């Protein structure tokens, strides 16, 4: 049932209408040129408040979510989102703060943002931070734009290439192109590390920078990172850190120490802000001192004299790459991230990296013990790891997708499937630190059960899911017989 099916065409006497309408009528529009007035129907359904509440409450229950299910979605860091963080962001003083409010009416917000900048610096080991990017991908954009600005500022205009590993997340190459770069891919070795020799062969005077995720999307730490950094720097390139996997090393190692020049952090992953079924996120960028002049604004500064906080002015950032959003990005997400960081403190930050890693390695070992094939069996897991079902795909015709759908039947969200593209029939599994040992053990049990089903009742697996609001959906039909808005 769509909300449009509940449309009564004429409005029931709703909450907002009773007096808001009163006294308003077409006469009030007399000053608007007739040609510009709307004649056509708005087409927004007229539904009673109860029906709206019931419709969307019932819809919500068709979602898996952290609050209801274990959600080991690799690369997404689906950890517990503390309730208090949301409550903090919704405090009237914050929720009602206008983005252009006067600085005297904004000291609470600004102080908080100032401290968050410092926290992200401390956690990443970078010299300066801008909070404005609105998700990881925009952080990447800001980072590459700064790399470009850096080279241009030095008159170095030949650098037209960004190097990325073949395993990189799709946003990496897409961002490079948005920044006007050509993408050069470098392969990854069988052990998950970047092929440094191959990389060395392609980097040079045209290299603007290298983008790396570390731990990488293979779920392994890039062991030769220092060498990589040295080589890229040697040819005049810069190093970009995709922070999607920061959770693995939070408090245990810092991209700034590894030689990265510019980084982003996905607060909606590492800093536990809710993902909202597809955002909002937040992707602050951090830079080494050399890139600081190029940071996107606004940045919060403290006036040493008055101890007051304010936004940086355009004059203070003459080399800035500019504005990335109308105001200051997803400020409400930043507040939530701050709340989370304050709950953690220094020791807590460290425990995140430790337990994320412990959970992943434990789960990897247990799944391997079941006979599930690891993509990188010789390696430690970071906060996540890859398994591959290529054998079962061959033998039973059961794909990683079939298995993922079957997992849903047991009330566990599927890991990330078919990413990175390099590993056939793979799952990228990330349990996060907030899941208990019991939950991990239950996952292992369920996997054992599904493995048995693969042998005994393969059609049960291929036809999954069976216990969800809908069965396997037809993607092909969706793209062919496009129905993307009700007409």
């Amino acid at each position, binding site marked *: 049932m769509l909300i449009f099916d509940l449309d009564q065409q004429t409005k029931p006497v709703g909450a907002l209408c009773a007096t808001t309408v009163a006294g308003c009528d077409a006469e009030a529009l007399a000053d608007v040129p007739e040609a510009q007035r709307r004649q056509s129907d708005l087409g927004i359904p007229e539904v009673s408040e109860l029906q709206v509440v019931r419709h969307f409450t019932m*819809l919500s229950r068709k979602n*898996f*979510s952290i609050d209801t299910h274990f959600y080991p979605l690799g690369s997404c860091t689906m950890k517990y989102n503390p309730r208090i963080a949301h409550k903090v962001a919704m405090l009237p003083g914050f929720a009602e703060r206008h983005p252009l409010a006067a600085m005297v009416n904004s000291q609470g917000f600004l102080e908080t943002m100032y401290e968050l900048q410092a926290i992200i610096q401390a956690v990443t080991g970078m010299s300066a931070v801008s909070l404005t990017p609105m998700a990881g991908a925009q952080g990447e954009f800001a980072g590459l734009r700064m790399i470009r600005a850096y080279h241009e500022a030095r008159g170095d205009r030949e650098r037209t290439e960004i190097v990325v590993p073949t395993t990189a997340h799709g946003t990496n190459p897409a961002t490079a192109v948005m920044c006007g770069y050509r993408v050069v891919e470098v392969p990854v070795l069988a052990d998950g590390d970047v092929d440094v020799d191959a990389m060395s062969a392609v980097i040079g005077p045209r290299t603007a920078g290298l983008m790396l995720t570390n731990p990488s999307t293979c779920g392994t730490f890039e062991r030769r990172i220092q060498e990589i950094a040295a080589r890229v720097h040697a040819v005049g390139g810069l190093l970009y850190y995709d922070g999607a996997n920061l959770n693995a090393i939070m408090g245990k190692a*810092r991209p700034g120490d590894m030689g990265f020049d510019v980084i982003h952090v996905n607060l909606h992953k590492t800093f536990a802000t809710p993902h909202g*079924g597809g955002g909002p996120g937040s992707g602050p960028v951090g830079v080494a001192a050399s890139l600081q002049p190029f940071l996107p604004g606004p940045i919060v500064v403290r006036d040493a004299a008055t101890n007051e906080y304010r936004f940086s002015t355009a004059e203070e950032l003459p080399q800035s790459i500019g504005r990335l959003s109308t105001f200051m990005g997803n400020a409400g997400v930043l*507040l939530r991230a701050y709340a989370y960081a304050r709950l953690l403190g220094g020791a807590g930050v460290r425990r995140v990296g430790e337990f994320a890693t412990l959970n992943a390695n434990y789960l990897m070992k247990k799944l391997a013990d079941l006979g599930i094939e690891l993509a990188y069996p010789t390696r430690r897991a970071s906060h996540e790891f890859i398994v591959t079902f290529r054998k079962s795909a061959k033998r039973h015709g059961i794909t990683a997708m079939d298995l993922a759908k079957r997992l849903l039947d047991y009330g566990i969200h599927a890991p990330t499937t078919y990413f990175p593209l390099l590993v056939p029939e793979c799952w990228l599994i990330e349990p996060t630190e907030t899941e208990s040992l019991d939950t991990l053990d239950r996952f292992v049990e369920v996997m054992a059960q599904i493995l048995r089903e693969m042998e005994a009742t393969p059609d049960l697996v291929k036809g999954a899911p069976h216990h969800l609001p809908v069965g396997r959906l037809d993607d092909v039909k969706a793209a062919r017989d496009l129905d993307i*808005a009700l007409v």
Partner: protein
Amino acid sequence: MPFVPHTDQDCARMLETLGVACVDALFDEIPEALRVSEPLDVLPALDEMSLWRLMQERAEKDRIKLSFLGAGAYEHYIPAAVWDIVGRGEFMTAYTPYQAEASQGTLQVTYEFQTMMCRLTGMAVSNASLYDGASALAEAILMSVRANRKNKTGPVLVPENVHPFYRQTCETLVRAQGVVLETIPCDRRSGLISMDHLQRYEQHGDEKAPVPTAVVISQPNFFGGIENPDALTDWAHERGAIVIAVVNPISLALLKPPGEWGKAGADIVVGEGQALGMPLSSGGPYFGFMCSTKALMRQMPGRIIGRTVDQSGRHGFVLTLQAREQHIRRAKATSNICTNQGLAVTAATLYMSLLGSTGLRSVALRCHQRLKELLSFCQTTPGVTPFFTGAAVFHETVLRLPVSAEAVCARLSQSGILAGLPLQQLYPQIPGSEFGLLVCTTEKHTSEDLHRFGAALAQAISAQASDAQASDA
């Protein structure tokens, strides 16, 4: 408090399973020199109670009494049901709906959202959101360049009266791809885009200016003025340019939808969705919306939800047309956008559903009416006049004060009143902008609020005038 559920026994058991003595051993692939051994210099941990107290105190500092500040972020009333439902864990703590069967809630909501946006704008296609209004405009510009098969190298004409922060954001986001943005001045009297300026653009001096690839039209414009987009749209289309509309969604309850502009309608429609149920929240999270004609659909950035069926023919929803997106197309994607503003879209869908057409229209009417009342209050103060003339406005306009608007705002902010935006901050190039104050009303303002504001403004103006006199003397 890292929300780690493990007990010491759990850790012991897990380490034993792994055959390592301590957690640190699991980090042995990290070169030793890179390992951090001390806790990082993060502010000291607070328990939830202390954090709450601290944040309450900070938030309290930022509360204001009365605001007439708009300029792209509008304080509308959000029905209580919106965030009660949006805040349900099932919506709030889900990821992007990659596993369609386990995400029918979010997917269906987004499909409903897409439908509502199509109807509101009069377009055929809507995506599932972009980050915000400004970045949505940038994406629209990039999309127009991709979509304009015949003319990829012309400039994109952006009138001066498009939100300055949108224009700045576009500069940042499109320049790297070699797209040129050409600013078209607006009429100094009305603040509107004038045909004159467009013609002047085409023929400055002897050379003919390059034919534009796209033309942006903001309705209403940054000054609240209502443009005549029909003429502009036709002018652009005659030149083979793509028409990009930037609209305030609330205004669409009253104004002609972009799909009906001119002879053929706008090609791409973007805007800031904040007014549809998102709190002001210091500028975000909001969401950018984007709609287009069917013809341009495959150039659209961002996610799109489609309706399909399952094996037994039941309706269901999935991410579709993914071949445009970065996770499939990588370097060839229409955009790098991945995570967008899903929860905000859920809020907007709830908001629109609760209001319905009637409610939306009455909110818009009330906003409009209030501004007229405000104007009449303010103009009782000697020296206060409209800054622009000859343009109808929607819920926002520029006042001309007899003294510095910046100074008046500073005075009023001391007593917790946000008077509006001093025009000079963003339009120093407009003569007299020092005296311009952009003010905005919404349905939340009561007559009493308008009275209070009128009085406070008058007082601040006279105080400023006498101070200025004193310092002159």
